[in-house]
């Protein structure tokens, strides 16, 4: 017998780790990645790989040379940010723009707040929105699925269903008329539409959701609240006036709603801690997303909606508490 270790209980651990959770999310995103490579071509892959490499590189440089601390790039969190940023970009965006996005995501979005677990906003969305405002043309030059352009000049540009809808409604067409010209719902679910690299593969994203739920990486509360509130809020508008408001299924399947609900809003550090809080947070995202799409200047609002609700997280966490034991009135005789 060597020396005895004395430490307080518990003396056993589940074996769960940061890496297991982070790489679990990475695995959950692989179907969406494969799907979008199939739909949009190899350009998607180069966008995502560039984004991942740049994110990991900046995290390494900042931790090693700026903070002169421990380098934790192997925990998988920078890889997630990289993939998500890549998923949010058109597949034909110039690679140097991605590098800038990665610097903003990791440098400002994550490391400036203290790194893993401390970022109040989703780092990938910080980068994405920065790019959207700085490079509006490149950020909205989408490619039609099934076309494999070799350079930026070859783009067969295809506006997104959301963009088409927004523009057409302005010209007085009804959503029903516009929908006839748009890809079918099943094409939208399977990702055969124009859009950002990883946003379009709805079915693949849902597969990732199932994986994360089974592995208990996340709970159902946030994704269900976001998708449910997008559906209900847009359904109410549609019921009020079908001539100007698109049907709820369209809102659910178009743009980045699925990617946002499943992979972005569920970011651990920028979402509420309690399940109740998660539902409030998710409803906020859903309502704001539809509001921006319907009443705002941008055709898509999920990124802004998540960032806005991220800002409310500390408030939600302060006032929304999990159900405490013994709050339920006791029924003694």
């Amino acid at each position: 017998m060597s020396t005895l270790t004395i430490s307080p209980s518990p003396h056993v651990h589940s074996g769960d780790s940061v890496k297991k959770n982070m790489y679990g999310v990475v695995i959950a995103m692989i179907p969406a990645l494969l799907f979008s490579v199939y739909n949009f071509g190899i350009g998607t892959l180069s966008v995502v790989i560039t984004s991942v490499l740049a994110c990991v590189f900046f995290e390494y440089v900042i931790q090693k040379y700026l903070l002169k601390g421990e380098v934790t790039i192997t925990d998988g969190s920078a890889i997630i940010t990289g993939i998500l940023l890549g998923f949010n970009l058109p597949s034909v965006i110039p690679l140097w723009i991605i590098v800038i996005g990665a610097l903003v995501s990791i440098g400002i979005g994550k490391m400036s707040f203290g790194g893993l677990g401390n970022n109040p906003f989703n780092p990938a969305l910080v980068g994405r929105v920065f790019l959207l405002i700085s490079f509006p043309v490149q950020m909205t030059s989408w490619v039609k699925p099934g076309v494999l352009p070799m350079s930026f000049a070859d783009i067969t540009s295809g506006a997104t269903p959301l963009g088409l809808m927004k523009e057409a409604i302005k010209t007085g067409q009804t959503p029903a008329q516009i929908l006839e010209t748009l890809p079918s719902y099943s094409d939208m679910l399977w990702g055969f539409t124009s859009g950002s690299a990883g946003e379009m593969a709805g079915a693949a994203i849902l597969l990732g959701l199932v994986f994360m739920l089974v592995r208990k990486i996340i709970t159902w509360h946030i994704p269900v609240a976001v998708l449910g509130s997008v559906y209900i809020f847009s359904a109410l508008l549609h019921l009020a006036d079908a001539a100007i408001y698109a049907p709820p299924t369209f809102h659910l399947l178009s743009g980045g709603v699925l990617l946002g609900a499943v992979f972005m809003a569920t970011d651990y550090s920028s979402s509420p801690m309690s399940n109740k809080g998660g539902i409030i947070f998710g409803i906020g995202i859903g309502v704001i997303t539809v509001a921006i799409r319907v009443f705002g200047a941008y055709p898509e609002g999920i990124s802004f909606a998540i960032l806005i609700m991220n800002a409310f997280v500390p408030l939600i966490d302060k006032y929304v508490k999990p159900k405490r034991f013994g709050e339920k009135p006791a029924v003694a005789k």
Partner: protein
Amino acid sequence: MLKTFSLGGIHPPENKFSAGKQIEVMPVPAQVAIPIAQHIGAPATPVVQKGDTVKVGTLIAKSSGFVSTNIHSSVSGTVFKIDDIVDASGYKKAAIIINVEGDEWEESIDRSADLVKEITASPEEIIKKVGEAGIVGLGGATFPSHVKLSVPPGKTCDVLILNAVECEPYLTADHQIMLEKGEEIMVGTQILMKSLKVDKAIIGIENNKPDAIKHLTELASSYPGITVEPLKVQYPQGGEKQLIDACIKRQIPSGKLPIEVGAVVQNVGTTVAVYEAVQKNKPLFERVVTVTGKSVSKPSNFLARIGTPINNLIEAAGGLPEDTGKIIGGGPMMGKALTSTEIPVTKGSSGILIMKNEEAKRKKMQNCIKCSKCISACAMGLEPYLLMTLSDKQVWDRAEEEKIMDCIECGSCSYTCPSQRPLLDYIRLGKGKVGQIMRSRTK
């Protein structure tokens, strides 16, 4: 669907290696060290001196207050000295050390194996006898049992719940007691029911002990009022609050005791001790202890006299393995790491768990990633991550508001944390401090 408690919970690997191992009677050691503080409350006051001769069952230290209890000799022989020894807490505390000569029992103890079914004692006599016999909660909490049975004025108890959950991984003492002492448990339960003046008792057993459920269900059919409730396997179901919630769906309000919801909980091992005290005049001086661990060659359940050095039990279970890195008194979730193998078995020793070197050390802590898994695991609906931060930053008023005192220290949060954060360590520190502040306020 099987019943369980409403909030949180975890399911660690059960590792019940000693399950089904017959209870073996440990030989009486050459010397015992019997601590005078083996229970929650005031330490008992020694009533023997150096040189006194004692028998098995002789009172050697008497209760020193309402929440305190008697201590009896577990051997016959001569009091060698009263001295400070290191106990399971790691601190030096007073103990009565007795050199063993023979094995002579007090004449009043009925040593026959006959089952005495007829309960002649009145409720008041039962409580008195339980107090005199020095019985405490044998699940590990060691709260004096007669205090629990004394229902305070103005409160009523309508149900007795027997804690046969044994939710700690590895431990099998209660499981084996249920298999071997079923009849005694039934009579003991009736004694407890009589003292509490209730006509209903529920025995809560986790579903990983189907043989015990079957055995006790069969026995219970001939004892009116007693039912067996199979429960879903979920830690910390053996916590009083969780067990009451699981069995009868009543939640004890924050800061209150089980009696608030009309329930009293007693452990099954305790129930056997109550039977022995009331029907056989036998004070509590021995108990069943599980000795186990992945590296232990002969995981066992022993009946050991209080005061036996745990080393004797470890030897009887095949000896201390070479690669031992930690010895735990109790189970892996709530047990205490022991400082040596000389520590005596006490009333609260439910098990001795040997851990290998590689299991003994914690891994490096990482940043909190806000995954909220500690909240999902917490059986009290608390936010362990927040309580840790508040304790670390010493924000005591906020920690109190966030119900830090509700923590039952089950360790599910630390067990679950992917970042290996020592959540419970900090929460314990916070509880100590907040408790101090609350007490000074009422003064």
